[in-house]
Protein backbone atom coordinates (compact mmCIF):
# COMPACT_ATOMS: atom_id res chain seq x y z
CA UNK A 1 0.00 0.00 0.00
CA UNK A 2 1.21 3.47 -0.86
CA UNK A 3 0.54 6.50 1.30
CA UNK A 4 0.27 9.99 -0.08
CA UNK A 5 0.46 12.71 2.52
CA UNK A 6 -0.85 16.18 1.78
CA UNK A 7 0.01 19.40 3.49
CA UNK A 8 -2.99 20.87 5.30
CA UNK A 9 -2.25 24.50 4.45
CA UNK A 10 -1.67 23.75 0.75
CA UNK A 11 -4.89 21.75 0.63
CA UNK A 12 -6.81 24.67 2.17
CA UNK A 13 -5.30 27.15 -0.32
CA UNK A 14 -6.11 24.81 -3.21
CA UNK A 15 -9.67 24.43 -1.90
CA UNK A 16 -10.04 28.23 -1.63
CA UNK A 17 -8.76 28.73 -5.18
CA UNK A 18 -11.22 26.09 -6.37
CA UNK A 19 -14.09 27.83 -4.59
CA UNK A 20 -13.04 31.27 -5.77
CA UNK A 21 -12.31 30.48 -9.41
CA UNK A 22 -14.56 27.46 -9.92
CA UNK A 23 -11.63 25.35 -11.14
CA UNK A 24 -8.02 24.54 -10.39
CA UNK A 25 -5.50 22.62 -12.47
CA UNK A 26 -3.00 20.02 -11.32
CA UNK A 27 -0.22 22.37 -12.48
CA UNK A 28 -1.68 25.08 -10.21
CA UNK A 29 -1.56 22.70 -7.27
CA UNK A 30 2.03 21.71 -8.09
CA UNK A 31 2.89 25.42 -8.07
CA UNK A 32 1.45 26.05 -4.57
CA UNK A 33 3.82 26.87 -1.73
CA UNK A 34 4.76 23.81 0.37
CA UNK A 35 3.81 21.33 -2.34
CA UNK A 36 6.99 19.34 -2.64
CA UNK A 37 6.22 16.71 -5.24
CA UNK A 38 3.89 15.64 -8.01
CA UNK A 39 2.67 12.82 -5.74
CA UNK A 40 1.65 15.34 -3.09
CA UNK A 41 -0.12 17.49 -5.71
CA UNK A 42 -1.95 14.40 -6.96
CA UNK A 43 -3.04 13.56 -3.40
CA UNK A 44 -4.39 17.10 -2.87
CA UNK A 45 -6.20 16.92 -6.22
CA UNK A 46 -7.84 13.62 -5.26
CA UNK A 47 -8.89 15.05 -1.91
CA UNK A 48 -10.48 18.11 -3.59
CA UNK A 49 -12.44 15.92 -5.99
CA UNK A 50 -13.76 13.90 -3.06
CA UNK A 51 -14.47 16.77 -0.69
CA UNK A 52 -16.25 18.94 -3.26
CA UNK A 53 -17.71 16.14 -5.40
CA UNK A 54 -15.90 18.03 -8.14
CA UNK A 55 -15.46 16.96 -11.73
CA UNK A 56 -11.98 16.01 -12.94
CA UNK A 57 -11.26 16.26 -16.63
CA UNK A 58 -8.45 16.96 -19.07
CA UNK A 59 -8.03 20.18 -21.00
CA UNK A 60 -5.96 20.56 -24.13
CA UNK A 61 -3.63 23.52 -23.78
CA UNK A 62 -1.81 23.70 -27.08
CA UNK A 63 -2.80 25.11 -30.41
CA UNK A 64 -0.14 23.48 -32.59
CA UNK A 65 -0.25 20.07 -34.22
CA UNK A 66 1.14 18.36 -31.09
CA UNK A 67 -1.34 18.16 -28.24
CA UNK A 68 -0.54 18.78 -24.59
CA UNK A 69 -3.05 18.47 -21.78
CA UNK A 70 -3.51 19.28 -18.14
CA UNK A 71 -5.84 17.88 -15.50
CA UNK A 72 -8.55 20.30 -14.37
CA UNK A 73 -10.74 20.01 -11.28
CA UNK A 74 -14.00 21.89 -11.65
CA UNK A 75 -16.84 22.60 -9.26
CA UNK A 76 -20.09 21.29 -10.66
CA UNK A 77 -21.80 24.45 -9.38
CA UNK A 78 -19.17 27.20 -9.23
CA UNK A 79 -19.16 29.29 -6.08
CA UNK A 80 -21.30 26.86 -4.11
CA UNK A 81 -19.63 24.78 -1.44
CA UNK A 82 -21.02 21.25 -1.25
CA UNK A 83 -23.21 20.13 1.60
CA UNK A 84 -21.19 17.31 3.11
CA UNK A 85 -22.73 14.38 4.91
Amino acid at each position, binding site marked *: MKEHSFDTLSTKIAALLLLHEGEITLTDIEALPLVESQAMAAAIAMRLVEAFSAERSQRKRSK*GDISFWEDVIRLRQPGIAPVMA
Partner: protein
Amino acid sequence: MPKQAASAKSTKVSRLEEAIREQRDKLGQLRPNSCYPLLLSNTSIEGHVVDDVYDDLRRNYGVGCDRLDVIVDSGGGDVDAAYNLAQLFRRYGRQRLVFIVPRWAKSAATLLVCGGDSVLMTPVAELGPVDPQITEMNPLERRLEQFSPLHIESTLELIRDEYKAGNKQLADGLMQRLQFPLTLGSYKKSMELGKQYLIKLLSTRMLGGKTHQEVEAVAKRLTEGYADHGFCINLQEAQAIGLEAQELSTEELDIVWEIHRLTRQKSEVERERRRREIEKRIKEIPPELIEKLPSDLFRRPEKQDTASS
Protein backbone atom coordinates in the same frame (compact mmCIF):
# COMPACT_ATOMS: atom_id res chain seq x y z
CA MET B 1 3.07 38.75 -13.48
CA PRO B 2 4.10 41.58 -15.86
CA LYS B 3 2.83 41.08 -19.41
CA GLN B 4 6.31 41.20 -20.90
CA ALA B 5 7.60 38.44 -18.59
CA ALA B 6 4.53 36.26 -19.27
CA SER B 7 5.04 36.72 -22.98
CA ALA B 8 8.74 35.77 -22.70
CA LYS B 9 7.78 32.58 -20.87
CA SER B 10 5.12 31.78 -23.42
CA THR B 11 7.67 32.32 -26.22
CA LYS B 12 9.98 29.90 -24.44
CA VAL B 13 7.18 27.31 -24.29
CA SER B 14 6.46 27.89 -27.99
CA ARG B 15 10.13 27.43 -28.82
CA LEU B 16 10.22 24.16 -26.89
CA GLU B 17 7.05 22.95 -28.62
CA GLU B 18 8.61 23.83 -31.97
CA ALA B 19 11.76 21.88 -31.02
CA ILE B 20 9.63 18.85 -30.11
CA ARG B 21 7.87 19.14 -33.47
CA GLU B 22 11.24 19.24 -35.28
CA GLN B 23 12.41 16.10 -33.48
CA ARG B 24 9.15 14.33 -34.34
CA ASP B 25 9.64 15.20 -38.00
CA LYS B 26 13.24 13.99 -37.82
CA LEU B 27 12.02 10.65 -36.48
CA GLY B 28 9.46 10.56 -39.32
CA GLN B 29 12.32 10.81 -41.83
CA LEU B 30 14.13 7.86 -40.21
CA ARG B 31 11.14 5.57 -39.91
CA PRO B 32 8.59 4.58 -42.56
CA ASN B 33 5.67 5.32 -40.23
CA SER B 34 3.58 8.40 -39.42
CA CYS B 35 4.31 9.61 -35.91
CA TYR B 36 1.87 10.79 -33.22
CA PRO B 37 3.33 12.02 -29.90
CA LEU B 38 1.02 11.27 -26.95
CA LEU B 39 2.87 13.35 -24.37
CA LEU B 40 0.59 13.30 -21.34
CA SER B 41 3.18 13.54 -18.55
CA ASN B 42 1.07 13.56 -15.37
CA THR B 43 -2.28 14.08 -17.12
CA SER B 44 -4.51 11.02 -16.79
CA ILE B 45 -5.72 9.04 -19.76
CA GLU B 46 -9.45 9.80 -19.59
CA GLY B 47 -12.38 10.41 -21.90
CA HIS B 48 -11.44 13.97 -22.87
CA VAL B 49 -8.01 12.81 -24.02
CA VAL B 50 -9.66 10.16 -26.22
CA ASP B 51 -11.83 12.89 -27.82
CA ASP B 52 -8.86 15.17 -28.45
CA VAL B 53 -6.65 12.40 -29.85
CA TYR B 54 -9.46 11.36 -32.18
CA ASP B 55 -9.74 14.98 -33.40
CA ASP B 56 -5.96 15.10 -33.97
CA LEU B 57 -5.88 11.81 -35.88
CA ARG B 58 -8.83 12.78 -38.07
CA ARG B 59 -7.21 16.11 -38.83
CA ASN B 60 -3.74 14.65 -39.49
CA TYR B 61 -4.56 11.39 -41.26
CA GLY B 62 -8.20 11.52 -42.32
CA VAL B 63 -9.93 8.17 -42.02
CA GLY B 64 -6.73 6.24 -41.33
CA CYS B 65 -3.19 5.43 -42.36
CA ASP B 66 -1.29 2.17 -42.72
CA ARG B 67 1.67 2.55 -40.39
CA LEU B 68 1.73 4.56 -37.21
CA ASP B 69 4.26 5.20 -34.43
CA VAL B 70 2.90 6.60 -31.17
CA ILE B 71 5.37 8.13 -28.71
CA VAL B 72 3.87 7.58 -25.26
CA ASP B 73 4.71 9.50 -22.10
CA SER B 74 2.06 8.70 -19.51
CA GLY B 75 1.63 7.60 -15.91
CA GLY B 76 -1.70 5.94 -16.67
CA GLY B 77 -5.33 6.75 -16.03
CA ASP B 78 -8.63 5.12 -16.73
CA VAL B 79 -8.33 1.57 -18.07
CA ASP B 80 -11.50 1.82 -20.22
CA ALA B 81 -10.24 5.01 -21.87
CA ALA B 82 -6.81 3.41 -22.46
CA TYR B 83 -8.44 0.42 -24.15
CA ASN B 84 -10.56 2.72 -26.30
CA LEU B 85 -7.48 4.72 -27.27
CA ALA B 86 -5.59 1.53 -28.19
CA GLN B 87 -8.43 0.50 -30.50
CA LEU B 88 -8.47 4.00 -32.01
CA PHE B 89 -4.73 3.94 -32.75
CA ARG B 90 -5.20 0.56 -34.44
CA ARG B 91 -7.48 2.18 -37.00
CA TYR B 92 -4.64 4.57 -37.80
CA GLY B 93 -1.96 1.91 -37.83
CA ARG B 94 -3.88 -0.65 -39.87
CA GLN B 95 -0.79 -2.54 -41.02
CA ARG B 96 1.67 -1.67 -38.29
CA LEU B 97 1.25 0.10 -34.96
CA VAL B 98 4.37 0.70 -32.88
CA PHE B 99 4.42 2.35 -29.47
CA ILE B 100 7.62 4.16 -28.51
CA VAL B 101 8.31 4.71 -24.81
CA PRO B 102 11.06 7.21 -23.93
CA ARG B 103 10.57 6.99 -20.14
CA TRP B 104 7.09 6.07 -18.79
CA ALA B 105 4.06 4.15 -19.97
CA LYS B 106 2.83 2.95 -16.60
CA SER B 107 -0.38 1.35 -15.44
CA ALA B 108 -3.23 2.01 -17.92
CA ALA B 109 -0.61 3.33 -20.39
CA THR B 110 0.97 -0.14 -20.30
CA LEU B 111 -2.37 -1.56 -21.39
CA LEU B 112 -2.37 1.03 -24.19
CA VAL B 113 1.04 -0.03 -25.53
CA CYS B 114 -0.03 -3.68 -25.38
CA GLY B 115 -2.45 -2.71 -28.17
CA GLY B 116 0.40 -2.30 -30.66
CA ASP B 117 2.32 -4.75 -32.82
CA SER B 118 5.46 -3.96 -30.86
CA VAL B 119 6.93 -1.54 -28.37
CA LEU B 120 10.25 0.27 -28.73
CA MET B 121 11.93 1.35 -25.50
CA THR B 122 14.94 3.33 -24.33
CA PRO B 123 17.20 1.67 -21.74
CA VAL B 124 15.40 3.65 -18.99
CA ALA B 125 11.84 3.25 -20.27
CA GLU B 126 9.35 1.73 -17.84
CA LEU B 127 6.10 -0.11 -18.25
CA GLY B 128 4.19 -1.15 -15.14
CA PRO B 129 1.64 -3.57 -13.68
CA VAL B 130 -1.99 -3.11 -14.79
CA ASP B 131 -3.67 -3.80 -11.43
CA PRO B 132 -6.26 -1.11 -10.60
CA GLN B 133 -5.54 1.27 -7.75
CA ILE B 134 -8.08 2.08 -5.05
CA THR B 135 -7.63 5.42 -3.32
CA GLU B 136 -9.03 6.06 0.13
CA MET B 137 -8.74 8.82 2.69
CA ASN B 138 -7.20 7.99 6.06
CA PRO B 139 -8.99 10.58 8.19
CA LEU B 140 -6.85 10.16 11.31
CA GLU B 141 -3.52 10.77 9.66
CA ARG B 142 -4.72 13.12 6.93
CA ARG B 143 -3.32 11.15 4.06
CA LEU B 144 -4.58 9.22 1.10
CA GLU B 145 -3.91 5.53 0.94
CA GLN B 146 -3.67 3.77 -2.36
CA PHE B 147 -3.92 0.03 -2.63
CA SER B 148 -4.43 -2.71 -5.14
CA PRO B 149 -7.25 -5.30 -5.04
CA LEU B 150 -4.34 -7.76 -4.79
CA HIS B 151 -4.02 -6.63 -1.17
CA ILE B 152 -7.55 -7.76 -0.32
CA GLU B 153 -6.64 -11.43 -0.36
CA SER B 154 -3.54 -10.91 1.79
CA THR B 155 -5.57 -8.84 4.28
CA LEU B 156 -8.24 -11.56 4.54
CA GLU B 157 -5.49 -14.11 5.05
CA LEU B 158 -4.01 -11.99 7.85
CA ILE B 159 -7.41 -11.83 9.60
CA ARG B 160 -7.92 -15.57 9.16
CA ASP B 161 -4.51 -16.19 10.72
CA GLU B 162 -5.38 -14.01 13.72
CA TYR B 163 -8.61 -15.96 14.29
CA LYS B 164 -6.72 -19.24 13.97
CA ALA B 165 -4.13 -18.02 16.47
CA GLY B 166 -6.94 -17.25 18.94
CA ASN B 167 -6.53 -13.47 18.73
CA LYS B 168 -10.27 -12.92 18.35
CA GLN B 169 -10.30 -9.34 19.64
CA LEU B 170 -7.63 -8.24 17.19
CA ALA B 171 -9.25 -10.13 14.29
CA ASP B 172 -12.68 -8.63 15.13
CA GLY B 173 -11.13 -5.16 15.19
CA LEU B 174 -9.56 -5.72 11.77
CA MET B 175 -12.83 -7.07 10.39
CA GLN B 176 -14.65 -3.93 11.50
CA ARG B 177 -12.21 -1.76 9.59
CA LEU B 178 -12.84 -3.68 6.36
CA GLN B 179 -15.01 -2.31 3.59
CA PHE B 180 -18.55 -3.45 2.84
CA PRO B 181 -18.27 -6.97 1.28
CA LEU B 182 -19.91 -5.89 -1.98
CA THR B 183 -17.34 -3.10 -2.31
CA LEU B 184 -14.52 -5.58 -1.68
CA GLY B 185 -16.02 -7.87 -4.28
CA SER B 186 -16.21 -5.08 -6.83
CA TYR B 187 -12.56 -4.15 -6.16
CA LYS B 188 -11.51 -7.73 -6.86
CA LYS B 189 -13.66 -7.83 -9.98
CA SER B 190 -12.01 -4.65 -11.29
CA MET B 191 -8.81 -6.64 -11.71
CA GLU B 192 -10.57 -8.97 -14.11
CA LEU B 193 -11.38 -6.03 -16.36
CA GLY B 194 -7.72 -5.16 -16.94
CA LYS B 195 -6.93 -8.78 -17.69
CA GLN B 196 -9.81 -9.08 -20.17
CA TYR B 197 -8.73 -5.94 -22.02
CA LEU B 198 -5.12 -7.16 -22.13
CA ILE B 199 -6.13 -10.53 -23.56
CA LYS B 200 -8.30 -8.85 -26.20
CA LEU B 201 -5.51 -6.51 -27.26
CA LEU B 202 -2.54 -8.87 -27.05
CA SER B 203 -4.25 -11.78 -28.81
CA THR B 204 -5.17 -9.68 -31.84
CA ARG B 205 -1.84 -7.93 -32.54
CA MET B 206 1.36 -8.25 -30.51
CA LEU B 207 0.88 -11.90 -29.50
CA GLY B 208 -1.40 -12.86 -32.38
CA GLY B 209 0.64 -16.00 -33.11
CA LYS B 210 0.51 -17.31 -29.54
CA THR B 211 -2.00 -19.69 -27.96
CA HIS B 212 -4.77 -18.37 -25.73
CA GLN B 213 -3.01 -19.87 -22.69
CA GLU B 214 0.23 -18.07 -23.53
CA VAL B 215 -1.56 -14.74 -23.97
CA GLU B 216 -3.52 -15.27 -20.76
CA ALA B 217 -0.28 -15.95 -18.89
CA VAL B 218 1.17 -12.61 -20.02
CA ALA B 219 -2.07 -10.79 -19.07
CA LYS B 220 -2.12 -12.53 -15.68
CA ARG B 221 1.48 -11.57 -15.06
CA LEU B 222 0.75 -7.93 -15.83
CA THR B 223 -2.34 -7.77 -13.61
CA GLU B 224 -1.42 -10.06 -10.71
CA GLY B 225 2.23 -10.94 -11.01
CA TYR B 226 3.95 -8.00 -9.34
CA ALA B 227 4.09 -7.09 -5.67
CA ASP B 228 3.74 -3.36 -6.21
CA HIS B 229 1.95 -1.10 -8.69
CA GLY B 230 5.14 0.91 -9.18
CA PHE B 231 7.22 -2.10 -10.27
CA CYS B 232 9.65 -1.11 -13.01
CA ILE B 233 9.02 -3.28 -16.07
CA ASN B 234 12.01 -2.30 -18.14
CA LEU B 235 12.98 -3.62 -21.56
CA GLN B 236 14.51 -6.84 -20.25
CA GLU B 237 11.52 -7.58 -18.01
CA ALA B 238 9.07 -6.76 -20.82
CA GLN B 239 10.89 -9.24 -23.08
CA ALA B 240 11.08 -11.83 -20.29
CA ILE B 241 7.31 -11.85 -19.75
CA GLY B 242 6.74 -12.27 -23.49
CA LEU B 243 5.99 -8.80 -24.81
CA GLU B 244 7.27 -7.87 -28.27
CA ALA B 245 9.67 -5.20 -26.98
CA GLN B 246 12.91 -3.95 -28.51
CA GLU B 247 15.45 -1.24 -27.84
CA LEU B 248 15.45 1.77 -30.14
CA SER B 249 18.32 2.01 -32.60
CA THR B 250 21.01 4.56 -31.66
CA GLU B 251 19.85 7.25 -34.05
CA GLU B 252 16.18 6.82 -33.13
CA LEU B 253 17.05 6.71 -29.46
CA ASP B 254 18.86 10.07 -29.67
CA ILE B 255 15.77 11.70 -31.15
CA VAL B 256 13.27 10.05 -28.81
CA TRP B 257 15.36 10.96 -25.78
CA GLU B 258 15.62 14.55 -26.98
CA ILE B 259 11.81 14.65 -27.23
CA HIS B 260 11.63 13.43 -23.64
CA ARG B 261 14.11 16.05 -22.41
CA LEU B 262 12.31 18.85 -24.26
CA THR B 263 8.94 17.75 -22.87
CA ARG B 264 10.35 17.83 -19.33
CA GLN B 265 11.85 21.28 -19.92
CA LYS B 266 8.53 22.54 -21.21
CA SER B 267 6.70 21.25 -18.12
CA GLU B 268 9.25 22.94 -15.87
CA VAL B 269 8.95 26.29 -17.65
CA GLU B 270 5.16 26.10 -17.38
CA ARG B 271 5.30 25.16 -13.70
CA GLU B 272 7.63 28.09 -12.99
CA ARG B 273 5.27 30.47 -14.77
CA ARG B 274 2.36 29.09 -12.76
CA ARG B 275 4.31 29.59 -9.50
CA ARG B 276 4.59 33.31 -10.26
CA GLU B 277 0.93 33.61 -11.24
CA ILE B 278 -0.39 31.67 -8.26
CA GLU B 279 0.92 34.18 -5.71
CA LYS B 280 -1.22 36.89 -7.31
CA ARG B 281 -4.24 34.60 -7.49
CA ILE B 282 -3.95 33.68 -3.80
CA LYS B 283 -3.96 37.40 -2.87
CA GLU B 284 -7.24 37.83 -4.75
CA ILE B 285 -9.11 35.22 -2.67
CA PRO B 286 -11.74 36.99 -0.50
CA PRO B 287 -10.97 36.19 3.17
CA GLU B 288 -14.63 35.36 3.92
CA LEU B 289 -14.40 32.39 1.55
CA ILE B 290 -12.63 30.42 4.26
CA GLU B 291 -16.01 30.09 6.00
CA LYS B 292 -17.30 28.22 2.95
CA LEU B 293 -14.71 25.46 3.09
CA PRO B 294 -16.31 22.08 3.77
CA SER B 295 -16.02 21.27 7.45
CA ASP B 296 -14.84 17.77 6.67
CA LEU B 297 -12.06 18.68 4.24
CA PHE B 298 -9.82 16.45 6.33
CA ARG B 299 -12.37 13.93 7.46
CA ARG B 300 -13.56 10.78 5.77
CA PRO B 301 -16.54 11.43 3.53
CA GLU B 302 -19.26 8.77 3.32
CA LYS B 303 -18.41 7.77 -0.23
CA GLN B 304 -14.75 8.10 -0.98
CA ASP B 305 -13.51 5.28 -3.15
CA THR B 306 -12.08 5.76 -6.58
CA ALA B 307 -10.47 3.14 -8.76
CA SER B 308 -8.02 3.85 -11.53
CA SER B 309 -5.16 2.02 -13.10
